[in-house]
C-alpha cells in the first residue's frame, strides 16, 4: 500500500517561507483555490494557508538554538478527522494515503478541525469550507509536467532541500531511508494518529581534528624539504630535481 508523505529536515530548514509562498501560489490558482486572503494590506491580515513555517527558540540564553518548523497536514495513517465528518467530505485515498476534503460536499461545520490535534485544517473564510494540504494531488499525477516536476510545490521550491517527498511504505524510497538512517520521527505520537509525514531532527556535524593532521610531519612542500630538494645536486638526471 502506498502512503505518500513529506519528510522535513529540521537540520537544514532555514525558515525562508519559500514553501509557504509556493504552496499558496500553486494551490490558490489550482483545484483547491482560491485560498482567500482578507485585509491583506490592512491592520489585521488573515488568510487560508495549507503550510506555515513556525519558529521556536530552544534552550536558555545564550545557549539557544532557533528551529524553524514547517507545519502542514501530516496525512495520518489513522486520520482522526475522517470518521468524524458527518458528510464524508473528508476522506483518505486508498491508492496513495492522501487525506483530502471534497469541497463540494463539505458543509463547513469545523468538526474535523476539532478532531485534528495538529491544527492542520483551516476554514476558508470566503468559501466557508474546510481546507488543508492536498500534497499537491493535482500536480504529482499531472502527466503534462516533466517527470521531475511531479512533486508538491513546497518540495520543488525548497532552496535547501529540507523537504523530501515519497512513499513512506516503500522501504527503499528516499524518504524511508531518510527516516531510517536519520532518526525520522512523528509529531504527537501519543495520540495514535500515526502521521505519515516525518521530521528529521537537528544534528551536530562535527569532526575531530588532531594537530598532526593540520601539519604533516613529512610534508614534501614544507620549507625545509624544499630547501633540501632545491639544493644544488650532483645528480645528473633532471628527473631527480622535478620528481616532486
Amino acid at each position, binding site marked *: 500500500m502506498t502512503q505518500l508523505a513529506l519528510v522535513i529536515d*529540521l537540520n537544514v530548514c532555514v525558515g525562508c517561507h519559500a514553501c*509557504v509562498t509556493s504552496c499558496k501560489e500553486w494551490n490558490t490558482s489550482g483545484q483547491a483555490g482560491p485560498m482567500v486572503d482578507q*485585509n491583506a494590506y490592512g*491592520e*489585521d*491580515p*488573515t*488568510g*487560508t*494557508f495549507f503550510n*506555515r*513555517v*513556525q*519558529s*521556536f*527558540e*530552544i*534552550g*536558555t540564553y545564550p545557549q539557544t538554538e*532557533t*528551529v524553524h*518548523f514547517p*507545519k502542514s497536514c501530516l496525512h495520518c495513517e489513522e486520520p*482522526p478527522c475522517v*470518521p*468524524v*465528518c*458527518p*458528510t*464524508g467530505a473528508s476522506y483518505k485515498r486508498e491508492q496513495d494515503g492522501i487525506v483530502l476534503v471534497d469541497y463540494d*460536499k*463539505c*458543509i*463547513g*461545520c*469545523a*468538526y474535523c*478541525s*476539532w*478532531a*485534528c*490535534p*495538529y*491544527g492542520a485544517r*483551516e*476554514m476558508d*473564510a470566503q*468559501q*466557508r*469550507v474546510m481546507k488543508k494540504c492536498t500534497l499537491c494531488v493535482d500536480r504529482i499525477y499531472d502527466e503534462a509536467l516533466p517527470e521531475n516536476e511531479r512533486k508538491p510545490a513546497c518540495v520543488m521550491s525548497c532552496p535547501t532541500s529540507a523537504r523530501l517527498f515519497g512513499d513512506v511504505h516503500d522501504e527503499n524510497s528516499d524518504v524511508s531511508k531518510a527516516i531510517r538512517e536519520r532518526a525520522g*520521527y*512523528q*509529531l*504527537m*505520537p*501519543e*495520540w495514535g494518529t500515526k502521521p505519515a509525514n516525518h*521530521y528529521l*531532527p*537537528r544534528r551536530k556535524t562535527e569532526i575531530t581534528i588532531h594537530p598532526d593532521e593540520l601539519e604533516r610531519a613529512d610534508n614534501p612542500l614544507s620549507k625545509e624539504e624544499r630547501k633540501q630538494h632545491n639544493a644544488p645536486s650532483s645528480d645528473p638526471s633532471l628527473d631527480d630535481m622535478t620528481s616532486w
Partner: protein
Amino acid sequence: MHPPFSMVFLTTLIGAGQGLFLALFTGQVFSQFKLLQAHDSQFFVIGTAISILLLCMGLFAAFFHLGRPERAWRSATRWKTSWLSREIIALPAALGAVALYGLAHFLGYTEPLMITAGGTQIDLTLLLGLLATIAVYLLFICTGMIYAGIKFLQEWHTPLTVINYILLGTASGFTIATALAAYFATEESSLVPFYATWAIIFTFLALITRSAALIRNRFFIKPKSDMRSAIGINHKNIKQIAQGSMGGSFNTREYFHGKSAGFVNTMKIVFLVMVFAIPLVLLVLTFNLSGLIIPLVAVAVQYLGLMVERWVFFADANHPQNLYYQQIS
C-alpha cells in the same frame, strides 16, 4: 475553544425541549398508574408545543454554525462513524416523535387500547410517549458524544459530558414543566409540587455531576501533549517566536476564547449560582407560594445560567493545537 454561540443556543434549547418532554411524560405515567391526580389534557398539548418550539429553535440555531447550511442534508450520511451525523438524524427523529405524542393528545386518542391486570389503562399517547422517550435519550447521547467523543479535548473526553447534557437538559425541562403546572393550577388541584420536586432532584443531581466535571478539569487532567511532543524536540525550555502569520488565522480564532482565566473562573461561579442555587431556592419556594411569577423567574434564570454554563464548557476546553499558536511573533 472559542465558544460558538450557535452551539450554545442549540445545546441549551434542545436540552430544555427534551427535558420538558420527559417531564410531561413522567407526569402522564404517574397519572396513568394512579400515583398522581389526572392532568388537564391541554397541559400536554401546550407543553408539547413548547417542547417542539424549543427543539425547532435549537435546530434553527444549529444552521448558523454551518459554513454551507444549504448542504446540511448531506450530514445525515455518515451515521456509521460520526456522532455529529447521528445527532443530525436523532434531532428530527426526536422532534417527530414528540410531535406525534402531542398530536395524539391534541386529537384525544386516550381511549385505552388495553388494560393491564392491575387496571392500568394503556393508550396510544403512552406508547407514543415511550417511543419519544427513547428518541429523546438517543438525542441526548448523540449531543453529548459529539463532545465526549473527541479524545484530543481531554476536558470533554469523559462520560460526565454525556451525563451532564442529560441531567442539565432534564433539570431545565422540569423547571419549565413546574411553571406550566403553575399556569394550569387551580384552587383545588395543583401539580406544581410534583414537578417542582422532580426539578429539584434533577437540578441537584446535575449540580453534583457538573461540579464533578469542573473539579476533574481543574485538578485531575494531565495534558497528554506538550511542546516536546508537538515539535518533537526533547528540551524542557521551548519558546515559540513566530507562528507563521502576523494577523492570526483560523487556528487562533477557533481555539482561543480571548478572555482571561479570571473571567472564565468568574463565569463558573455565575453559572453555578444561576443554574443551581437560585432555581433551587425558587423551586423550594413554590411549595408554599402559589403563582406563576416564581417558577417563571426560575425558568428564566436557569436558562440564562445554562447559556453561561455552555460558554464555560467550551472556554474550559484546551485543544492540543494551541501548543503551535502560543505567540504571534
